């Protein structure tokens, strides 16, 4: 390791350590959630059908554009494109660059989907606010809408949600679906809208002022999907404002497009290249969870310092 690289590594570890940066895993009882396979596939739902979201990534966007941005977002957590060598996790868009699924179903069905909800259910369900779908909370999947009366949507202010189904004994993730609360252009054009968000994929400036405006930024797709992809693979929110898993996102925010140190440490700890997935016991035994970025960073710094001291004549296997 060159002196410059060494100094950089120690500095990075120190930043993690003293800032208290830590990744947080999603837990259920005593287990942490994780994918047992390193090849996880997903599909992106059609956003241009009868109940499709319009104006995602700007007006007249082709599927390949959205697919590419979603794919880039998932790849941030993987080795794809040379992003991270420390993990062999693969998050694969089954539909490729053009194929979109017509399914907008979420929940436990063994199909992982990224769904663009196309506006409030009260305006998209054929029966309006009195449509029968409200009685059994099936509006969202049936009409691809955001149902503020459903317990799992609950509020129009939510940008996106990920629902994860898992094995209660082991924590193994069985299904994960991402829903994005897109705006309905029929309900107005001034931003912010009162129902849903304008998702853009374009440049970082200027800020959009109207729904459907081209070449501007509002709720950045890559920013949002990269965050939700963290939930998708078993990470929860943390309290570090620079982390991809920090829970807030303002219009124009693009910081979550790139993983922070603790995000990288999380995915590399849990899904290490060539190594076993970091699980947390079972719900009938003790929990092994508890890895923290701060402790890990301090440990890394200590190892690097020790290695530096003993470097002359030392051989390492790491």
């Amino acid at each position, binding site marked *: 390791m060159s002196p410059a690289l060494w*100094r950089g590594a*120690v*500095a990075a570890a*120190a*930043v993690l350590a*003293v*800032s*208290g940066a830590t990744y947080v895993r*999603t837990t*259920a009882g005593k287990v942490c*959630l994780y994918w047992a396979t390193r090849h996880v596939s997903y599909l992106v739902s059609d956003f241009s059908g009868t109940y499709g979201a319009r104006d995602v990534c700007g007006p007249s966007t082709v599927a390949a554009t959205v697919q590419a941005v979603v794919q880039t977002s998932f790849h941030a957590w993987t080795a794809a494109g040379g992003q991270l060598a420390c993990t062999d996790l693969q998050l694969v868009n089954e539909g490729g660059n053009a194929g979109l699924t017509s399914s907008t*179903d*979420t*929940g*436990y*069905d063994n199909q992982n989907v990224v769904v663009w909800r196309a506006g409030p259910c009260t305006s998209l369900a054929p029966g309006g606010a009195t449509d029968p779908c409200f009685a*059994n*909370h*099936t509006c969202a*999947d049936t009409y691809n809408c955001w149902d503020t*009366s*459903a*317990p*799992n949507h*609950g*509020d129009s*202010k*939510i*940008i996106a*949600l*990920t*629902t*994860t*189904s*898992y*094995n*209660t*004994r082991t924590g193994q993730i*069985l299904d994960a679906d991402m829903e994005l609360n897109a705006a309905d252009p029929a309900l107005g054009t001034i931003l*912010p809208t009162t129902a849903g968000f304008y998702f853009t994929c374009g440049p970082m400036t200027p800020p959009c002022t109207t729904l459907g405006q081209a070449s501007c930024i509002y709720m950045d797709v890559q920013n949002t999907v990269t965050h939700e992809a963290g*939930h998708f693979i078993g990470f*929860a*929110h943390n*309290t*570090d*404002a*620079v982390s991809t898993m*920090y*829970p*807030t*996102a*303002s*219009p124009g925010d693009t910081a979550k497009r790139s993983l922070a140190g603790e995000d990288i440490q999380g995915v590399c700890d849990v899904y290490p290249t060539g190594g076993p997935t970091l699980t947390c016991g079972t719900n009938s035994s003790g929990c092994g969870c508890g890895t923290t970025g701060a402790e890990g960073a301090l440990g890394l710094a200590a190892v690097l310092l020790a290695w530096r001291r003993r470097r002359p004549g030392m051989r390492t296997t790491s």
Partner: protein
Amino acid sequence: MRVPLALLLLLAAIPAAAAVAAPVTVENLAREADAVVRGKVQRRVSRWGEDQRHIFTFVTVRVGAVWRGNAPERVTVRVPGGEVGEIGQKTDAAPEFEDGEEVVLFLVREDGDTFRVHGLALGKFQVKKGEARPGLDRFTFTKGLIPAGERRVEIMPVDELEWRVRGRP
């Protein structure tokens, strides 16, 4: 070694991430809710929804006080997620409950005595030692200004939460 040590000392003085402004206020949640109650969680039952793909948990809460609106002595609150046999389901931002937990809930009526929590985890405060703690610490969706005199959803004394819900004393 001078550079890393100096860097460590410098960085040690940097505070941790600060709190984040929230556009959702207690008063706003209260205005939009059908009822706001303080009570204790008695039991939870999870089952599959009608589509057989989503799990919901029905939480029974014994109501000690109704701060706003109307609610019976016992309310059933439907929340997304839960565990049925070997299958569990979680929706991020959804409120979670524990048996015996003391809570303040902002509720929207679904039908009869069944309610849902308004604003997902924002509409559930855990009460402990006189403090009311919302379901997700520091959870906000977008930044923005809040109306003068109102307070965003965050940790606060339960007495303050009550008078903000009921209206100023």
